[in-house]
């Protein structure tokens, strides 16, 4: 039987999309012999939908990923063609960076990085089967006595490809994106392909199911692409990029990323568009029932919007370039699965699109993914040790959501392979923590998108301080260089020093100060009473930057330091309140629950709680409390049991 290739690796990554790239890079950079599979080498880091990276809350993810030592932020900094800070008029917690990518440049840049990373090999091929073996007794968690829940535990051994080759590996990370049993649909047309006509992976699902992994079907979609030459931009509103550019990556400075930007354009649908949609709605596979997968509510197709919000007489459509290399323009807001002829007709009703030529039709795509509650917060399968999953296979959506999961899965696979302690970010560490905790704790019934409202400590989880939150962790993992780390420590020192100086420097009640205050519409200081600079910064109409006029002692500091000083002083009260909440939250997160605890045996819990806890098997009391169907009384009961067992305390 030795006619097939047989090779040995430390880590195998299945898929080279945004999750797969970060996973493979993290593992290889941590010194593990890594192999990444892709159905097509040309589709590494492909952006098959929107041509941008970042946006509200996604920008946060990219910054956090960068702070930890991921690649996405650096890659988009190198390849963007327009950059914009969203929510600039709002508080700093919701400022979100979004950059239009040159898709070809982005995937080229990422592919080159992968190809030139030591320990990393790329292979074009389709993984057909997961190979597992029984988990040896001694590898059970914490040497706890064997319990029922742990009985069928398996261990990953490697993967087989459709060609019959067998690749042994200590760890396998599944980053299959939307490719499992993918089917693209528009109108009556249905093709069994992945995005952009790429081949689907049609065998792996059966293997996942045979391994007992819960599989379900989700749906998403993408709008049409139109030839730039056929569009009349004079009838649209121009959307320019920011004049002041700001990088995603903490390793880049604004002057590193200066370049000429291209514009996006804004147009609107109208009654005519809606009329065409309404009269053809019966031909949509979504409404005819041909599509069974669950679609995302936050990214509805245009026909969904028209049906669901009949009172809106127009919808915004942003027209975005796919890159400098092409004339294709992406119609953001126009995703659809209506038949080709309807798509043509409806697009041509919009101002500027009267003579539009479609290059690629809009389509919906259905795919298999897993119920991520079968994963631990490390993204490792509870029942199959050494197997991880990241990205859209976990029921998330979005490049950024995928990338951060890929990174965390890669890091944990690598750390575990080296016998090092795993890294789990919690909900107070970052959006990454919120995202993964939601995925593995709450049963989601639609593709999961990050939103700032999902982060309960968002005043602390800002883009601007992602490095202050996570650089340390990235360095400890080994993916942030010594040089980057030292720059970070220096920054931290400067911030602390300057904040202290602001608190100690007193603005006296003199002519200069009062003239300054008056100029900025701020109350002047009463005679003989001075206030600290910090107090003045807290006033809504003033800022650290403005205070330079009366701050004769000020030394020039890096812009990132100035920004932190301003934010930390200005919002101190709010920040302090959130820190207190975090403290409370951390206490519960520290109360660990035994991995193999059989909740069915804990008769004091209500039936629903027992079932949910046994299914999700949370890592700690905090996570247990976030499971829907587990009440505060159940948590009290659980704490009593823990105490009785003499485990799980943080003493």
């Amino acid at each position, binding site marked *: 039987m030795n006619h097939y290739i047989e090779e040995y690796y430390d880590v195998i990554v299945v898929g080279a999309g945004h999750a797969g790239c970060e996973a493979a890079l993290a593992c290889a950079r941590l010194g593990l012999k890594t192999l990444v599979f892709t159905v097509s080498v040309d589709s590494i880091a492909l952006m098959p939908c*929107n041509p941008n990276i970042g946006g*509200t*809350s996604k920008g946060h993810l990219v910054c956090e990923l960068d702070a930890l030592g991921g690649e996405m932020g650096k890659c988009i900094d190198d390849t963007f063609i327009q950059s914009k800070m*969203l*929510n600039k*008029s*709002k*508080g700093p*917690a*919701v400022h979100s960076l979004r950059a239009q990518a040159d898709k070809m440049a982005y995937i080229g840049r990422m592919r080159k990085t992968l190809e030139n990373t030591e320990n990393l090999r790329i292979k074009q091929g389709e993984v057909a089967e997961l190979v597992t073996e029984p988990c040896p007794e001694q590898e059970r968690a914490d040497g706890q006595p064997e319990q029922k829940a742990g009985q069928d535990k398996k261990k990953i051994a490697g993967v087989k490809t459709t060609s019959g080759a067998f690749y042994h590996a200590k760890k396998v990370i599944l980053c299959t994106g939307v490719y499992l049993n993918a089917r693209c649909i528009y109108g009556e047309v249905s093709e069994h392909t992945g995005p952009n006509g790429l081949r689907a992976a049609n065998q792996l699902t059966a293997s996942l199911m045979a391994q007992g992994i819960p599989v379900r079907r989700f749906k998403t979609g993408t*709008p049409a692409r139109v030839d730039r030459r056929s569009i009349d931009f004079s009838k649209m509103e121009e959307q320019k990029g920011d004049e002041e550019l700001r990088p995603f990556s903490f390793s880049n400075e604004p002057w590193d990323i200066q370049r000429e930007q291209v514009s996006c354009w804004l147009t609107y649908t109208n009654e005519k568009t809606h009329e065409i949609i309404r009269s053809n709605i019966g031909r949509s596979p979504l409404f005819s029932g041909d599509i069974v997968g669950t679609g995302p*509510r*936050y*990214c*509805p197709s245009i026909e969904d*919007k028209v049906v*669901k*919000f009949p009172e*809106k007489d127009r*919808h*915004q459509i*942003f027209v975005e370039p796919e890159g400098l290399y092409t004339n294709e323009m992406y119609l*953001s*807001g126009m*995703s659809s699965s209506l038949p080709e002829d309807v798509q043509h007709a409806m697009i041509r009703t919009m101002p500027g699109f009267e003579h539009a030529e479609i290059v690629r039709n809009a389509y919906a795509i259905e795919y298999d993914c897993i119920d991520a509650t079968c994963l631990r917060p490390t993204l490792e399968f509870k029942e199959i040790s050494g197997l991880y999953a990241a990205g859209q296979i976990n029921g998330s959506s979005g490049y950024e959501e995928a990338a951060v999961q890929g990174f965390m899965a890669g890091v944990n696979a690598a750390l575990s392979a080296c016998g090092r302690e795993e890294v789990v970010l919690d909900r107070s560490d970052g959006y990454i923590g919120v995202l993964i905790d939601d995925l593995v704790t*709450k049963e989601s019934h639609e593709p999961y998108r990050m*939103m*700032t*409202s*999902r982060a309960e400590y*968002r*005043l602390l989880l800002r883009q601007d301080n992602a490095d202050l939150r996570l650089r340390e962790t990235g360095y400890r993992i080994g993916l942030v260089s010594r040089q980057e780390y030292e720059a970070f420590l220096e920054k931290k020192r400067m911030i602390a020093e300057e904040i202290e100086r602001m608190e100690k420097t007193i603005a006296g009640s003199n002519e200069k100060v009062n003239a300054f205050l008056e100029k900025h519409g701020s109350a002047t200081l009463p005679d003989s009473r001075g206030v600290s600079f910090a107090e003045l910064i807290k006033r*809504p109409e003033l800022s650290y930057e403005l205070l330079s006029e009366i701050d004769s002692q000020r030394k020039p500091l890096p812009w990132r330091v100035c920004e932190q000083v301003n934010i930390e002083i200005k919002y101190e009260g*709010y920040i302090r309140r959130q820190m207190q909440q975090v403290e*409370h939250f951390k*206490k*519960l997160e520290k109360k660990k629950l035994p991995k193999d605890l059989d909740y069915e045996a804990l008769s*004091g819990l209500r039936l629903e709680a027992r079932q949910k806890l046994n299914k999700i098997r949370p890592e700690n009391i905090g996570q247990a409390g976030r499971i*829907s169907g587990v*009440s*505060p*009384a159940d948590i*009290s*009961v659980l*704490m*009593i*049991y823990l*105490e*009785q067992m003499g485990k799980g305390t943080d003493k």
Partner: protein
Amino acid sequence: MIGQTIAAIATGLTESGIGIIRISGPESYEIAKKIFRKKNGSVPELSESHKVHYGFILSQAAEEHVSRETSGQILDEVLMLNMKGPRSYTGEDTIEIDCHGGILMMKRVLDTVLRAGARLAEPGEFTKRAFLNGRLDLSQAEAVIDVINAKNDRALKASVAQLKGSVSEKIRKCRETLLEDTAYIEAALDDPEHIELTGFSEKLLRDVEQTEQTLGRLISSSEDGRLMKEGINTAIVGKPNAGKSSLLNVLLGEERAIVTDIAGTTRDTLEETINLRGVTLNMVDTAGIRNTEDTVEKIGVERALKAARNADLVIYVADASVPLDDSDRRIIAFLSQEEKKTIVLLNKNDLAGMVSEREIRELLPEDTCILSISAKHEVGIEELEQRIEEMFYTGSLSYNDELYITSARQKEALVKAAAALRQVRESVEQGMSEDFYSIDLMNAYTELGYILGEEVDEDLVNEIFSKFCMGK
């Protein structure tokens, strides 16, 4: 969490009894020093443990415009016991206050303690702490869990069921407004290119002020106990034609009964509040089931049993003029199984008796009170009233103490919600950006949710998606 100081009424709530307020946790001594004064007005000396102090409880300044209480007034004459941890029930520093003045006074003293910095104990929390602090044996863990579960179940039942319909309706409306406004802000933050926030803070401010006013009114009502349907929940059960309606009519008779009907409250059609010799009974009149002449007699029994299950006292009216039938046997089986406080009335004693006291006594617990009456001729009613009064004053029947806990918990939630809204208002007035509002708005929303017993979880995300057209 251990670390916070908790307080609750530790004894049953009977009108005549002495009530104990227990405070446990690191700040309990501080709280005692704040609210307790010796007879000569001095602060108590607490350095020696396990000492009894005699003095007064003084009212505490309430939060501005959320309460009418004023500070420094003498509320009650009390005995106070201080116990230094770990030599206390919970193993923590503990203060116990024995107050004299009946239920209302206990509530006011508890309120004062909460205002001075304690938080209301969760159901079973003292026991839980005792256990977690090693004061109870490991073998008692099961018992602790039972206490938590039992208390929690009852508290949950009380929480929503006891709330007046009009009150929950108001709170529900407030929540709807808060959720809608928050969802608008959040939708705009998540999708700034589609949804505009300009000018929204004016609308928000109006909504917040209005909600604050509503909450303020609810908080004052809560101080008078007007939020809750108070009294002993009493169910009258019995098969059709046993005489339940007649009994109720007799009890409601003009001379004896006071029927409360506070303006602005929706009175449940099947419920009457009766005051019998100073004891408030909240009657659940299963006699109101009208369609029992039909073949649906069974349904009537089901509904009666459901009412009985939630009651503190069950008055079972048996028709003594006909032999016991299946309906009677089901009711009796239920009563003995649920171990409810029960008074059995053998009605129609003016007719030939077909049911004997002995027959029923064999089927029910020994101490069950059985009386022979005639509702129609008003015979035996006097005795019935006397027995109820006795049961109450001997403590075998008491107001549902979970109700008071619930009521205090609900007030706590109202106060916190109002405080969160004040934060919102301040943020708006200080010109903070919109993303700061939603945190406090959601806090208020969550607090109000506790009152209605509703979980928050995905509400906001669902609201955003259902109301706003999002995304690409």
